[in-house]
């Protein structure tokens, strides 16, 4: 394990933290070279905390949690440490990992249609999880499945149990996925872009649902998204990632009010806003995120940054602690 490679001390391996990621690196072996998806990420999720991880496609935000869940592709190599409720789970063999994964630690994905079996009824799929993992009888399992659907506020749950996935709308399917992920009473739910495939109007409902469930079940949530607006409705803390590294981490309220990293500030401007007075140009980030296969030279964001200087192109900024439990990796952070 590389000691403090990011220039700060990693967060204490707190036994009470639901998830503690320390100096995680994930790289892929490709025929034309190694690609670094996650370069050096440390973060932690407290027991009942909700963190939002924000970044564009290719920032590595999903890979961090795929590594935690042991879902990385075959040609991936992960280094560092991922502790769940105190126990190291990175690199764990499938058998011991399955005791934790799917029950105490669950993950839902962007497209529920591919996670649900098309030819089985919803009720059967939900009950199957219980019968297989907890050895319940089918009767008990069906009853619990109904309760699970009620918990996620699916209207007419009895009827839904008898339906097939394609008969439900996108938002409804996502609720079913959430219900399925809650069956094992998780202490941490990882939601990877759960609303990106849904209408804007349904997004708010799913976020509200997650907020409610978090309180009711006392669980931690890690919400991953490319949209700061989605995360803003739920997160206590926000972590912003760019090109495989954390560039800012702060309390949600602080970051939304005054982001310190220029990237975070630009992302804030991109959140869809009906009250935006300037209509001539829709706010956006210029250019593209860097190619993960290309080697790092200086700050990865410099080519797109309005505040970049010559130093930024030369020297990569390290993640520094700021007051207020915030961290930022920038040579020219914005003032609060």
């Amino acid at each position, binding site marked *: 394990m590389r000691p403090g490679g990011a220039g700060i001390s990693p967060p204490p391996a707190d036994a009470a933290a639901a998830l503690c990621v320390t100096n995680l690196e994930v790289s892929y072996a490709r025929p034309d070279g190694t690609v670094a998806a996650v370069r050096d990420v440390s973060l932690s999720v407290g027991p009942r905390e909700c963190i939002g991880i924000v970044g564009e496609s290719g920032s590595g935000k999903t890979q961090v949690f795929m590594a935690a869940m042991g879902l990385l592709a075959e040609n991936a190599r992960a280094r560092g440490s991922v502790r769940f409720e105190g126990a190291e789970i990175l690199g764990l063999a499938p058998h011991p990992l399955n005791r934790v994964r799917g029950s105490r630690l669950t993950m839902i994905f962007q497209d529920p249609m591919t996670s649900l079996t098309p030819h089985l009824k919803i009720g059967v799929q939900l009950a199957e999880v219980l019968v297989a993992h907890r050895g319940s009888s089918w009767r008990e399992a069906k009853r619990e499945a109904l309760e699970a659907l009620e918990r996620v506020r699916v209207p007419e749950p009895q009827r839904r149990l008898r339906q097939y996935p394609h*008969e439900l709308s996108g938002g409804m399917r996502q609720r079913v996925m959430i219900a399925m992920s809650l069956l094992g009473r998780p202490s941490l739910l990882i939601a990877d872009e759960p609303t990106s495939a849904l209408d804007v109007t349904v997004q*708010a409902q799913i976020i509200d649902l997650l907020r409610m469930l978090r309180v009711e079940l006392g669980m931690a949530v890690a919400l991953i998204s490319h949209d700061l*607006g989605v995360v803003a409705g739920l997160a206590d803390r926000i972590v912003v990632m760019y090109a495989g590294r954390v560039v800012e981490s702060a309390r949600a309220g602080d970051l939304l009010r005054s982001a310190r990293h220029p990237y975070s500030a630009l992302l804030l401007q991109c959140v869809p806003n*009906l009250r935006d007075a300037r209509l001539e140009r829709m706010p956006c980030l210029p250019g593209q995120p860097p190619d993960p296969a290309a080697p790092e030279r200086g700050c990865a964001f410099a080519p797109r940054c309005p505040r970049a200087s010559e130093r930024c192109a030369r020297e990569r900024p390290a993640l520094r602690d700021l007051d207020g439990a915030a961290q930022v990796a920038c040579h020219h952070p914005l003032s609060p």
Partner: protein
Amino acid sequence: MSGALLEVRDLCVRFGAFAAVEDVSFDLAAGETVGLVGESGCGKSTLARAILRLIPASGGSVKWDGADLLELDAAALRRRRRHVQMVFQDPLASLDPRMTVGESLAEPLEIFEPALTKPERRSRTLHMLERVGLAAEMLHRYPHEFSGGQCQRIGIARAMMLRPKLLICDEPVSALDVSIQGQIVNLLRDLQGEFGTAMLFISHNLAVVRHLSHRVLVMYAGRLVEAAARDALFAAPVHPYTCALLAAVPDPARAPAGTAQDAFAESPPAGRVRSGCAYRGRCAYAAAACALEAPGLEQIGAQHAVACHRRRELVYS
């Protein structure tokens, strides 16, 4: 309005008993951008495909340049296609994976301007590629090598190759990161300014529609429920569904509300209400008349039309 570029009248698309699009009528003038909003499943994509005759319509007419597109024979229809192009929702899927970017861009030229020589074609595709902000060396590469935003630019370049008079954009930014969506929207706006192309911009995202449109149409369960100039719609919506749509857009400046509005208790995609107003199941203002007859789109002001039996009361509320 006889000066309109596109006149859609009473367009219907039915799949068996299911009416995906019912009695939709609207006009589109040259150089104008009309935004079409609605939730998933409301029929907006089906409407776009029916206008282009990518799927068969069950009734109505689509007048373009003096002819009804739905009545034309295949050859005449193909000839007119150069003027009405489409940009698709999934940028990568809309490009042939076995063709290079250059070949995909050159295809419209090969179809409609076969007299062009190879160097002429190459120079036109190069010009358009650069116009949408991509590098020349991309001509020889394949779509899977590019990001979603870049693929969408390629799709737009392909659609604009023949300088169409109308561009139909079916959720062109929904599959992209929010940070990139603005790039594509701004590009479309620039191209419109340069070429005078009219646009039908379909989206479920009101904020995006607000940036581009001159007029906005709101669709619900296969029917148009409101049509207004952009500012009028966003400032003073009349139809209860439009109001609910606007209220449901999350606002980061607002503290998160309690539980989600019941106005969006989702109904399953299949099944349409057979009689009366399709929205009455969710509507706070539903009255007896709403169950009997589906309301038609009626003018309530200059450039503002609403399909609601109680529109007069709602305007004054």
